[in-house]
């Protein structure tokens, strides 16, 4: 009874060669001829139609999911150019993949239900332990999609997810399901069986200045804050004309100074990035914050980000109850990667120092992180921005 894990990576400029070299390296590290699950990550330099069909065949058609990303997180390094392949085989863990395509053309709650149903269709009665998914990070209002997932699963196990990214171009992301490249889609894996899961999400941002109230909003568009056009908030703090903010600076500014709203009665905050500003100075978030909610401008720095990662790792460690993780997944906001800069590697090092330096790490930088919080009202799965999700399995 055991679980085998193999990770491979290649930065060959040729997509086919890179994918197959990464797959071969992963197979070598797997120490098993059987493959239950393959997870593929590639940076935006590679066109998945060049490599995915060949890779799927090369791996002998396993259950496969994957995502594009701006950078790949591995145990020893962060790679901004390359393809990584994770292979798993286990007698103890059950894996069941699911997918949904063309989410931009359909009701997101239904899409969430569809992917969850898809995973459950062949799953059987095995105890469910974790649902992990990648969704198009350019989609807005993913909380509807998340609610579709959680309603369908109606369980207490954690749901974690990452918005697929494309290195700050915000143009096109990819998700993979077996040998299919999804258009504005999502793919996920339901894990179950004899396994232990520890998962935590932190961000390290703190409120700055006086609290504000959202007076008017509609889904993910905030029209006014404290009875003023929403973008005025940034104008006030940064003393920058609204036109300038709209033109270029806001995307840059807001990754360092996002908005935050308190999460229940805890001191935790739900972080929201601004993805656009409209002509009437309304601001567009990736996911909604309801009208009437209190919001803050948030501030953080490298050290607070590093501390947050440490706290998340410590949290995971305590959840593992003394068990040594076999694999660590990290989904981390791409904005944090920019903020951390050269300290990004130090963050991974701190995580390894807490959870074990020999444990393989596989992760990506995302546009939005999805995590299940335990509140007094029960588990609540939310989309966060600017956060790090660390998940360990054994």
């Amino acid at each position, binding site marked *: 009874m055991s679980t085998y894990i193999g990770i491979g990576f290649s930065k060959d400029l040729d997509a086919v060669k890179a994918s197959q070299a990464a797959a071969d390296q992963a197979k070598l590290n797997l120490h098993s001829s059987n493959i239950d699950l393959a997870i593929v990550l590639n940076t935006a330099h590679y066109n998945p139609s060049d490599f995915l069909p060949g890779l799927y065949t090369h791996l002998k058609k396993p259950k496969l999911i994957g995502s594009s990303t701006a950078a790949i997180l591995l145990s020893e390094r962060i790679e901004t150019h390359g393809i990584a392949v994770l292979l798993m085989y286990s007698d103890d863990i059950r894996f069941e993949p699911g997918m949904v395509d063309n989410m931009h053309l359909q009701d997101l709650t239904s899409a969430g239900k569809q992917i969850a149903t898809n995973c459950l269709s062949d799953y059987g009665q095995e105890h469910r332990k974790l649902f992990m998914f990648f969704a198009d990070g350019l989609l807005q209002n993913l909380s509807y999609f998340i609610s579709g997932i959680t309603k369908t699963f109606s369980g207490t196990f954690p749901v974690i997810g990452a918005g697929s990214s494309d290195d700050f171009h915000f143009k096109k992301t990819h998700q993979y399901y077996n040998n299919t490249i999804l258009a504005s889609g999502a793919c996920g894996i339901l894990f179950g069986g004899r396994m232990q899961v520890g998962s935590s999400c932190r961000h390290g941002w703190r409120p700055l200045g006086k609290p504000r109230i959202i007076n008017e909003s509609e889904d993910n568009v905030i029209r006014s804050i404290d009875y003023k056009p929403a973008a005025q908030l940034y104008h006030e703090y940064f003393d920058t004309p609204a036109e300038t903010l709209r033109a270029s600076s806001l995307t840059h500014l807001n990754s360092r100074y996002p908005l935050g709203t308190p999460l229940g009665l805890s001191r935790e905050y739900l972080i929201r990035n601004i993805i656009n500003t409209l002509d009437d100075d309304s601001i567009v978030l990736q996911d909604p914050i309801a009208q009437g909610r209190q919001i803050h401008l948030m501030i953080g720095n*490298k050290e607070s980000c590093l501390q947050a990662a440490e706290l998340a790792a410590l949290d995971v460690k305590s959840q593992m109850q003394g068990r040594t993780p076999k694999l660590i997944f990290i989904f981390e906001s791409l904005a944090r990667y920019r903020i951390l800069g050269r300290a990004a590697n130090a963050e991974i090092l701190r995580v390894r120092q807490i959870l074990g330096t020999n444990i393989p790490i596989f992760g990506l930088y995302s546009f939005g992180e999805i995590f299940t919080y335990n509140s007094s009202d029960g588990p609540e799965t939310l989309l966060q921005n600017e956060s790090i999700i660390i998940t360990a399995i054994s």
Partner: protein
Amino acid sequence: MDNLELLYQFIIIVLLAAGGTLGYFLYNAVQEISVLKTTLNKLGESFAELDEQAKLIVKTDLELNRAQEELDKRLNGLDALQKTSRLITTTLDENETFQRLNPSLLTELGFEKYLIYTLDENQRLTLRVCTGYNTSDHDQITAQISRNPPILEWLKEGNMISSYASTPELQTLVFEITHVRNFVLMPILTQDKMTGIIFAGNPGDAFVVTEGDTELISILADQIGQAVENVRLFEQAYRAQQALEAKVQERTKQLSLALAEVQAISRNKSEFISAVSHELRTPLTSIKGYAALLIAGTIGEIPDKVKERLEKINKHSDNLVKLINDLLDISRIEFGKTEMKLTPHTISPIIENVQDLLTPQLKDKNIQFIKNLPTFCPSVPTDLSQIERVFINLISNAIKFTPSGGKITVSAAVESDKITFAVKDTGIGISKDDIHQLFNEFYRIENEINQNVKGTGLGLALCKKIIEAHGGRIWVESEPVQGSTFSFTLPLVVKEKIRA
């Protein structure tokens, strides 16, 4: 105090005046509201103050972050530049230089689109590196840059164009071609001449070009320029070397042909001498034989005067026979017809034999003959008769050119693999001009002694042939009036069968 509050106070006064408890309670409530309002106002002021402080913090934080980002960017860029430098300076192939500038390395410099061109002698741009553009895009960009004199002239003057520091007009020109707003367009300069162009750009607004970016691209341009210049200098040097080698080969070929021609002429000459010598020797033998018969009186008594003349004929015939023999020997040795029969010989007896042979001449001129040979002198593989000829020649010459009362020393020095003999005299010496030609056939030094004493000019040439046929070497050291030393070596071990 606002109107509402005045109204409340008026009602309270009326109610108090009416003596009611309600009035008293109302009075207290209004007082509490007033205190709360004051507190709320103070709280509002504190928030406002807090917000002002927050704005100050944001501004400071923003500056710090910008500085930190710039520092990070520069450190990353320097790392990447170090890598590129290591890669492009370790090749001496121009194509390889550009192939090594791969996209993953270049993107570490903070840009995702690159076009790197070189400029040929006809000022045509050749695309060497392309990252982030497809073929039709970069073809179009290349054509448009090539047709844009303002951009090219600006760059040729050593200036860059960037979204950080250039005029809006220049920025627009570049944007219209590349469709990238954040960019650096930098000339690659070698010895103040533009040899290429680097374009680095980011299409989105997320990465704004800073001064640090332009500096990094400038360093990259310098590195590429230096690498290309090194490659070209190497190619020039290599081509010059190739041309030189070709010339040397051509010259060597010409010299080989000339040498072969000279050798052929020499061979013809030797063959001619050999043939003539043979032809001369036969009648000479007859002449000598008949002269001997006449002198002996076999044919009949002859007058003394005739006898005297016949003896001269006989003597000159002997000289002629010796000359012909020497010529034939040289010819034979040259053509390998005379094989050196090398057998081990002790040198001392050879020298003693020669001394005995030449004792009359030594005595005639009262010349002291000294042998200075090592106590232990090893056997030397020699052809006895030939080596004797060498010693006879050298010692005869020494006697000839040493004035009466002089000294001749024959010495030997043994080394690990050879023995060196020296015949030293206290004679008239030899000038530098003569030394170089001394071993040539028929060369005779022009001096008084040679004018009076007849010789063939073949003795030293023959010695040289014999010594070389033994695998040794012969040379002379001399200065006029100081005497001469003729030295030659003989190997102590025969490496292979030596044939002349």
